[in-house]
């Protein structure tokens, strides 16, 4: 047990050091997951203690960038939870069509799967040309990948199935060019996308928006940080703006519960009250 206590101390010191040195704030992330990811990073760095890892990342910014890849979780797919996208198409799009121009924020966009899914949906609904999408993440390496719009061909079959279940109107293959093992997505999809470094833990609101999609990001935050994020979303959204979350994320336990109303509860689609 004494050893376990040491680990807790080292972990807190590492997270604090990262914050002081690099301004990345993991202090209010859910502890169990951060602990596992740091343990995983230790094995990859071939280091014995978190203290040794702390020394490495404190004095070597490139080592910190490597560690950041372990601390953030780039697990995503296109049209993840197809019924969610179908509900956006059926319940939200008709309301979005009433605006002359749209601003959409994909918060925690990781490697871009959510961004391209949304862009495809908007194009099919005739909305993409009048929409500006802000795609933000804390991980610059993920953002760079998202900007490229190149995804492994291995996953495309699954994405295609999702796309069809999500109410896709064309052939999914019309949106990319296959090159060896990769699918290169049509550049016109990301023409109106601004990819930017933004942290829900430390940054503030940068624009008014009509819809915010933040999926499978909030599960990694504790309640306090979740509430900070909900606060930013509430501030950014226009009157009656839309907030869409991951399939297991909810406003139910949050301080902002009464400031949003569910539009499609099952699909985690909310509207600012």
């Amino acid at each position, binding site marked *: 047990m004494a050893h376990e206590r040491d680990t807790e101390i080292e972990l807190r010191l590492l997270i604090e050091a990262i914050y002081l040195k690099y301004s990345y704030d993991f202090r209010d992330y859910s502890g169990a997951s951060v602990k596992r990811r740091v343990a995983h990073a230790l094995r990859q760095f071939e280091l014995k203690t978190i203290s040794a890892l702390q020394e490495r990342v404190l004095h070597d910014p490139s080592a910190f960038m490597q560690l950041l890849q372990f601390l953030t979780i780039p697990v995503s797919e296109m049209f993840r939870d197809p019924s969610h996208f179908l509900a956006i198409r059926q319940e939200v799009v008709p309301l979005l069509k009433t605006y002359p121009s749209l601003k959409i924020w994909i918060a925690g966009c990781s490697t871009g799967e959510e961004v391209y899914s949304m862009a495809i949906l908007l194009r099919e609904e005739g909305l993409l040309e009048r929409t500006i999408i802000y795609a933000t993440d804390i991980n610059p390496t993920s953002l760079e990948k998202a900007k490229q719009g190149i995804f492994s061909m291995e996953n495309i079959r699954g994405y295609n199935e999702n796309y069809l279940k999500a109410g896709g109107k064309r052939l999914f293959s019309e949106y990319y060019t296959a090159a060896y093992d990769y699918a290169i997505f049509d550049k016109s999809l990301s023409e109106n996308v601004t990819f930017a470094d933004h942290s829900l833990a430390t940054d503030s609101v940068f624009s008014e928006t009509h819809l915010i999609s933040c999926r499978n990001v909030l599960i990694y935050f*504790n309640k306090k940080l979740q509430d900070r994020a909900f606060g930013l979303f509430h501030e950014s959204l226009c009157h009656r703006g839309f907030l869409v979350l991951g399939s*297991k994320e909810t406003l*139910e336990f949050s301080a902002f519960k009464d400031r949003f109303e569910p539009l499609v509860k099952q699909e985690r689609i909310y509207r600012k009250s």
Partner: protein
Amino acid sequence: MRTTFSGTEPDLPALPKVAAIVVGASAGGVEALLKIFKPLRRGFRLPIIAVLHLPDERRSHLADVFNSHLAIPVKEADDKEVIAPGTLYFAAPGYHLSVEADLTLSFSQEERVYHSRPSIDILFESAADAYGAKLAGVLLTGANNDGAKGTARIKEYGGLTVVQDPAQALARTMPEAALALHTPDFLLPLPDIALLLVELERIAC
């Protein structure tokens, strides 16, 4: 390691007071879980948190199925939920389930462990961190190696470990993998595990 439990053995060592029970199962798990939970009466006060490997369907009916067969309340866990006494929680398909230090539940989508998300190891290891010695871990039938490391961790932190007797498990790989890593306190058939759960609750509450 004891290989029977009836609660009436004269040489039975004192059981520890635990604050929670974690359970992991894979192939053959539904039947096994029903068998060990069926004897738990309404008013059972220990929380039970379970991972059962299932295909990744988005909405699982596990909680409904178990609710209709058991006397204790059953629900699919929610992210950030405070663990309530006497409730059986199932991990949601597609997400790992952890216990946080403040005894709330949390979700994550890290890599699959032995092709599984939720993973038994992740639940058991995080619960061992949170509960320390006040935890009982039960590993049942299954056809992969998930749960072995987690069970060993529970033991390492002073908790009580129970493994289903592989000779009587529908799939013996999982209990055998656990036995290869550590010696549990109990190696039992399902009816004995059920009795042990009842006794653990009696002592703890």
